[in-house]
């Protein structure tokens, strides 16, 4: 596990993330024309949706690692799954923040129960925040790894079920359903900007993930060495 700068493919990923995000931000603010209905405020779409999709990707990755842990019982998957959940929660918080900003600029409120995406992310955020409480409360070891993995898999099942529940709840609670006026088809420039931002966010998540994972692995290695020396 090399940590030297020259051999590290993680540096390439970080550099790519930086470039893509820089490009994406520039495109989103300067190049893409204003959206017909919403105008300038709509540009936050180019951040909010890629961040949301990246959060989903992180949770999905975490669930995959969790499944691998339970299937192969290899311990390294525990750390990988945990780090992926951590990334997912970070991007989840960002989703809530950008979503809230967008709601404020579009409809005047910092929070709207009528926005399905926002409510879904709130539920997921609570769920995965509880994940950390679970990990904190159980002693490190194979048992904690197993339980974390099972919980992560439950999260993935919760995503579609929660979404269905939120949709069903709309008829109950009768809020005005807030959807952003995103046209069904994005124009060429909009699509390009969106994709560049999406790629940038995914690269950012990947880069942060690799960074944190390496850091945690180093910690673990250090602990092992210290133990061996005693």
């Amino acid at each position, binding site marked *: 596990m090399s940590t030297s700068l020259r051999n590290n493919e993680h540096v390439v990923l970080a550099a790519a993330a930086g470039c893509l995000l820089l490009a994406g931000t520039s495109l989103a603010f300067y190049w893409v024309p204003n959206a017909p209905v919403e105008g300038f405020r709509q540009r936050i779409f180019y951040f909010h949706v890629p961040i949301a999709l990246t959060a989903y990707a992180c949770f999905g990755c975490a669930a995959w690692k969790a499944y691998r842990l339970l299937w192969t019982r290899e311990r390294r998957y525990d750390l990988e799954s945990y780090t992926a959940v951590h990334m997912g929660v970070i991007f989840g918080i960002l989703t809530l923040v950008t979503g809230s900003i967008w709601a404020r600029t579009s409809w005047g409120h910092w929070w709207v129960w009528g926005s399905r995406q926002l409510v879904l992310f709130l539920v997921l955020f609570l769920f995965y925040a509880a994940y950390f409480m679970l990990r904190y409360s159980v*002693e490190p070891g194979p048992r904690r790894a197993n339980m974390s993995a099972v919980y992560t898999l439950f999260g993935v099942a919760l995503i579609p079920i929660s979404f269905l529940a939120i949709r069903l709840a709309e008829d109950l609670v009768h809020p005005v359903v807030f959807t952003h006026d995103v046209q069904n088809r994005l124009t060429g420039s909009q699509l390009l900007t969106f994709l560049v931002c999406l790629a940038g966010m995914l690269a950012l998540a990947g880069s942060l993930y690799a960074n944190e994972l390496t850091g945690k692995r180093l910690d673990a290695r250090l602990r092992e060495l210290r133990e061996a020396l005693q």
Partner: protein
Amino acid sequence: MITARRLGRDFGLKRVLRDVDFEVPHGGFLLVTGPNGSGKSTLLSLCAGLLAPTAGELAVEADRGEIGYLAHEPLVYRELTALENLDLYGRLYRVPERRERIGMLLERFGLWEARRERVASLSRGTAQRLALCRALLHDPRLLLLDEPYSGLDHAGARLLDDELDSLVGERTFVVATHAPQRVEALATAALSLA
């Protein structure tokens, strides 16, 4: 039957077992000694399959139904009677002729009169005898006993001596104890955890 190579187990940051090597053949009797906190109970839990090693390897050639495990705690429900506890375990372990076997064990360990009493109202020594019945109920091939004599009075200890004498050689044993004198004669190997 049991092979351990560089076996280790951590609990969080605390390393309880480190680099333990031993082999127990079929019919062998491994005596495990060591001071408090040296990991004797952890070793037995590992052999039983309750814990997984965090370092090294451990191979146990026995299925779950062939292992009899005696821990510090009696592993019985406090609010159920002795009979009810053994009946439940008897079902779960698919013990053939369950009633007869339970009756026989209760008699052998002098628990027949107390069989309908709640475990919570039993004395420590009586509960320990019940725990022994539970461990022996399904006639296991491999017996993992953690301080089997603790809490037993003189009579109880004699009963256990007799039981061990009758089973030694045909069954495989791993016994952890503070007071090895009682079982030293039966042991084919010894492991001292520092």
